[in-house]
């Protein structure tokens, strides 16, 4: 039985190598291609965990009610090496997220595009597009 289980487990690795290594897990199994969304909210927390980080945002509904959403983003390790911290994108930053909602239907989504209030794409690196980092335009 143990041998059989071992063989089963090995089989799935072949699946893993059949897709690009960076895919890590099948995002289309977690998020629904038929549920694209664009939401705007303010950042309350960035969980810099691996293998994928999560942005927590508060979204204001038309009736004034605030709902919490969690948006999946990239592995933080490379960013930490580049000097980015969980405070680099400041709490309260307004973000517009284009993405796809979780299949299970709760307020979770993958963010295929993170956009800042001035319309620029969030670019987490050293190019200065992150407010407060070297090279960024002066804050208003």
């Amino acid at each position, binding site marked *: 039985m143990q041998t059989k289980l*071992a063989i089963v487990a090995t089989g799935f*690795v072949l699946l893993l190598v059949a897709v690009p290594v960076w895919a890590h897990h099948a995002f289309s199994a977690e998020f629904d291609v038929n549920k694209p969304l664009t939401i705007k909210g303010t950042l309350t927390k960035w969980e810099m965990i691996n293998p994928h980080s999560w942005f927590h945002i508060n979204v204001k509904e038309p009736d004034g009610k605030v709902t919490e959403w969690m948006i999946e983003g990239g592995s933080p390790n490379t960013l930490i090496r580049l000097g980015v911290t969980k405070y680099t994108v400041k709490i309260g930053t307004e973000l517009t997220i284009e993405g796809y909602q979780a*299949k299970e239907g709760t307020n979770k989504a993958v963010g295929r595009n993170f956009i800042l209030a001035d319309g620029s794409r969030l670019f987490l690196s050293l*190019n200065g597009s992150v407010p407060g980092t070297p090279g960024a335009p002066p804050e208003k």
Partner: protein
Amino acid sequence: MNHRFRTSIRLLTIVFAVVLPMTAALAGQAPFSSAKASATAKKWTAKTSDGQPDLQGYWTNSTYTPLQRPNGVTKEFYNPEEVVQIEKQAAGREEAQTEPGTIADVHYDFTQFSLDRSQSAHLTQLRTSMIVDPPDGRIPPATPEGLKRQADRAAERKRMGATTDAVENMPVGTRCIVMAGSGPPMMPTGYNGNYQIVQAPGYVMILTEMIHDVRIIPLDGRPQLPPNVRQWIGSSRGRWEGDTLVVETSNFNGKNPFQNASEAMRVIERFTRLDVDTIDYRFTIEDEKTWARPWTASLPLRKTVGPIFEHACSEGNYSVRNTLAGARAEEKRAAEAAAKKGLK
């Protein structure tokens, strides 16, 4: 995508690909690395306090070089102009955003998180494949036993059902058990492909960033672990042959087979410090149950900047649950739709 920002990202991509490999830690390194190029660099002679050739530091194996030679390529080396073109095209593909509404688009954008290979230090080499033996740059044909094992594994996988049916069905990497970077052999992981080597009297330690595996390799000639002790990353024993560290690994548990190898696979790795920025890393795979002949690949390690940050892999916190719950929700919706159809 907004054209302005697309342009700025493209510029950045180029800057990182060219400049990062030449930052302080990497200064003086020729932009291309091969055995030939390294022969011109200053030979590395530094030793540790106990007399081992010094391999210590932070290294990356990030590269665009594939394990096997691509179809249609027959030569062993590209020329520098070809490599520049190939990397530029690959970086362009990484940078390009996917088409909205497609399965491929259901993903965060790697470029926004600096995860494209072109955005970090990586090794640009002229080789057309990592595999150097057989000379065709391809994994040798599998033996009948190897082919049968491959078919048996595929059948068993089918019998188990979808990867979303149970957490045990998910790949070991998704479950944060082990990833390709640990090996052995140590293979590129796409991003976070970093290592730290530390030497102490009688030992070499290799820390793999993703996913924080450590190999502590004794050099005192002790025997391998008994055959009944099997481990995810095997059991490694090392020795020096001149200035080359030779590490032999066996005792794999068979649950994470490299290229469909059997549990009997043995990996012989060779680390030779060529110069301040380069370790020649080669590995030979021996597994008579899968291939009639051993095969060897070369993937130099390039010096990079540290430290290594902990990659505590926490997929179970959210994504595993989301995926399983998503599959159940879909099944429920399908069942409800079927029931509704039946009522009509």
